[in-house]
């Protein structure tokens, strides 16, 4: 029992969740209180002791399904299961009957029946082959292809779960509810597939192929669409945290001058002896920030996230200006000013910004020239310049002299490169030419690295 817990925690640590020794002990105590048979409760209490950040919960859930899938009390063996995997030979039913049963179960929200249905579907359609090293996605595709869940959703929404469809609002609500229930069923199918995989290969082997990357560790340049959507969602809380941290640091930096009036007022309650000395709040010195981002092809998604983040925390800077470029440069600060949703702004940048001057391949030399020209005199010694790009200039001249010139006039220039450090200066990457003119050139591939950088800005 405790051996299983230790291995489960080792898996969580492999994913990147920080689990301390005392949390391990707490989880062990929790297992004493709740039996593993009450699955959902068991999962809740284990999560309560081990996961202290809700953004890690998805990764926890996946690992939990792998390690505790289908386990009952006493069934704590970690290896591949025995021959129990052969399907219970129920009476063969036609697909029509089968999908009718599914609709019924969904309409009644009959959880045990839904679980059975999911297991049955996997049994029937996934076509499991023992020991075949494919991931769950393959079986998932094969199972769902047969189920035709769109038709099920249709029939479910026709059942008018929310109310009689006499107007478009209720119709939409009926459909949303049907979709919610069907997507819950899809989760159950995923679970059933995992159970089968674990039975076949053992928890540890399956964990290796199903391990989830934490949102802040996803490599933005190679993220899948789902991962990008997750990142988008992770961005809002991240920027809120970052903003409050920066604000706090600024406030704390030193206290302001003595506040005579408050001090005297406070001294009245101690007979005129000023025991409590009051200070005025400090006047924060906020830096200016200018961002220049390459939005060509592959690095675009990173630029999007960075602009998004910088504008979400723009209150922490006295001024933020953003520019984007490919081989032409355009200022995009206005897009952020016109809407309060940074997502919309990012969308408009992608479609409306005027950044292609010639052939649509990034040209860092030309971009820098235009950028310095557009900035003109509007930079001071308090301005920090942030450049995002892979410095792949398609063999155009690099023109680092413009960067050198800018460096003379601003506080600092930072270059964030979304490529792995190992690829720098290979092929048409000319980052080495720019490096001497920057305060620092950093590899910045994940939200975690981006967050670390922004919070280290002086």
């Amino acid at each position: 029992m405790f051996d299983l817990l230790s291995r489960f925690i080792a898996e969580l640590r492999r994913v990147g969740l920080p689990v301390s020794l005392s949390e391990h002990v707490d989880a062990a105590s929790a297992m004493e209180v709740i039996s593993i048979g009450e699955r959902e409760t068991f999962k809740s209490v284990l999560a309560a002791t081990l996961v202290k950040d809700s953004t890690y919960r998805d990764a926890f859930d996946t690992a939990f399904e792998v390690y505790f899938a289908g386990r009952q009390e006493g069934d704590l063996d970690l290896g591949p299961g025995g021959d129990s995997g052969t399907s219970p030979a129920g009476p063969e039913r036609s697909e029509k009957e089968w999908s009718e049963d599914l609709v019924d179960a969904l309409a009644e929200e009959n959880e045990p029946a839904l679980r059975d249905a999911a297991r049955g579907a996997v049994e029937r359609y996934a076509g499991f082959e023992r020991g075949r090293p494919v991931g769950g996605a393959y079986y998932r595709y094969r199972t769902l292809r047969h189920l035709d869940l769109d038709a099920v959703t249709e029939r479910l929404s026709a059942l008018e779960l929310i109310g009689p469809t006499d107007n478009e609002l209720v119709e939409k609500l009926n459909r949303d509810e049907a979709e919610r229930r069907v997507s819950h069923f899809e989760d159950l199918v995923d679970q059933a597939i995992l159970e089968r995989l674990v039975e076949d290969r053992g928890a540890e082997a399956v964990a290796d192929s199903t391990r989830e990357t934490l949102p802040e560790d996803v490599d933005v340049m190679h993220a899948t669409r789902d991962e990008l959507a997750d990142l988008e969602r992770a961005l809002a809380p991240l920027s809120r945290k970052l903003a409050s941290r920066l604000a706090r640091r600024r406030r704390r930096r030193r206290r302001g001058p003595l506040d005579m009036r408050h001090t005297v007022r406070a001294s009245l309650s101690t007979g005129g002896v000023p025991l409590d000395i009051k200070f005025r709040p400090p006047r924060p010195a906020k830096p200016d920030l200018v961002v220049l981002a390459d939005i060509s092809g592959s690095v675009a998604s990173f630029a999007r996230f960075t602009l998004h983040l910088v504008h979400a925390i723009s209150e922490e800077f006295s001024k933020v200006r953003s520019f984007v470029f490919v081989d032409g440069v355009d200022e995009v600060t206005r897009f952020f000013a016109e809407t309060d949703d940074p997502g919309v702004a990012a969308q408009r940048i992608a479609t409306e910004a005027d950044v292609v001057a010639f052939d649509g391949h990034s040209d860092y030399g030309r971009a820098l020239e235009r950028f310095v020209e557009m900035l003109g005199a509007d930079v001071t010694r308090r301005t920090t310049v942030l450049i995002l790009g892979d410095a792949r200039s398609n063999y155009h001249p690099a023109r680092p002299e413009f960067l050198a010139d800018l460096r003379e006039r601003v506080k600092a220039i930072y270059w964030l490169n979304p490529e792995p450090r190992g690829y720098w200066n290979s092929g048409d990457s000319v980052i080495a030419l720019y490096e001497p003119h920057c305060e620092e050139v950093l590899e910045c591939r994940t939200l975690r690295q981006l967050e670390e950088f922004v919070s280290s800005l002086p």
Partner: protein
Amino acid sequence: MSALDPRQALAERLGIEVPAPRFDSPAQVGDLLAGVDYLPSSEIAAVTFLADRLAKPVLVEGPAGTGKTALAAAVAAATGSRLIRLQCYEGLDESKALYEWNYRKQLLRIQAGRRADETASWSDLEEDIFSDDFLLTRPLLEAITAPDPVVLLIDEVDRVEIETEALLLEILSEYQVSIPELGTVRARQIPMVFLTSNATRELSEALKRRCVFLHVGYPDPERERDIVTTRVPGIATQLATQIAQMVYSLRQLPLRKAPSVSETLDWARTLVILGHEELGPDVAAETLHVLLKYQSDIAAAHEALLSGE
């Protein structure tokens, strides 16, 4: 269970009897809380149960208006305990959270002593003015010295500075407070402790380690419907179902501020007062501003739900 029972170990350290557990099972937690009109999800019930058994504080995190503070109040009501609340804010210090010497009273005592008896020795006086009589207890100290059962709520703990968090650590893990002039004050009972956070910043590892963690998100439509029927008397079931579903659909949209449970309740009350029994596009359009607080969100909701395709 005895070898690992954290409650027993803690009770021994504090030198008190092992208190009886407050709850028998997670299901009972659910029933008790439902009895005071708080409908917990199974996860909320499970974690509350666990916290009692492990004698650990619960760190409750989640979006605003999802019933984090209400949970502590409901647990207090359900277990017949007194709720002691510490509202956190920036600049909270130990004199507001733990205890403070009443120096006004101390000054008076010294002055009174000077007149009455010139010969009183300093050590007598010192012993006198640093005694319980001159101690102002603040919520944290009050919670552990209380003789009656209490539930301690430390609200919005993410608002205090990270240094101030350290003040909480001793009380959260050892249920004791050290006062330099008096020594260590140990708890007379093990109170239930809830900390709430809106996750505006990362809490310190040390604090998280001492707590069990509970994320309270938006409820699913069934639970939200039940919450609406419980909290809004006289609402038709049909309307409650539609309200819950509508709010669920709204939360799927990319809004700046998703509607919270308390806003759902406001909306439900509004609809009941206006005498509606059913939700239609016109009714929804007229009252959407109760639910959504930004013009851009209201426009997005119109587009997605109210304009026929």
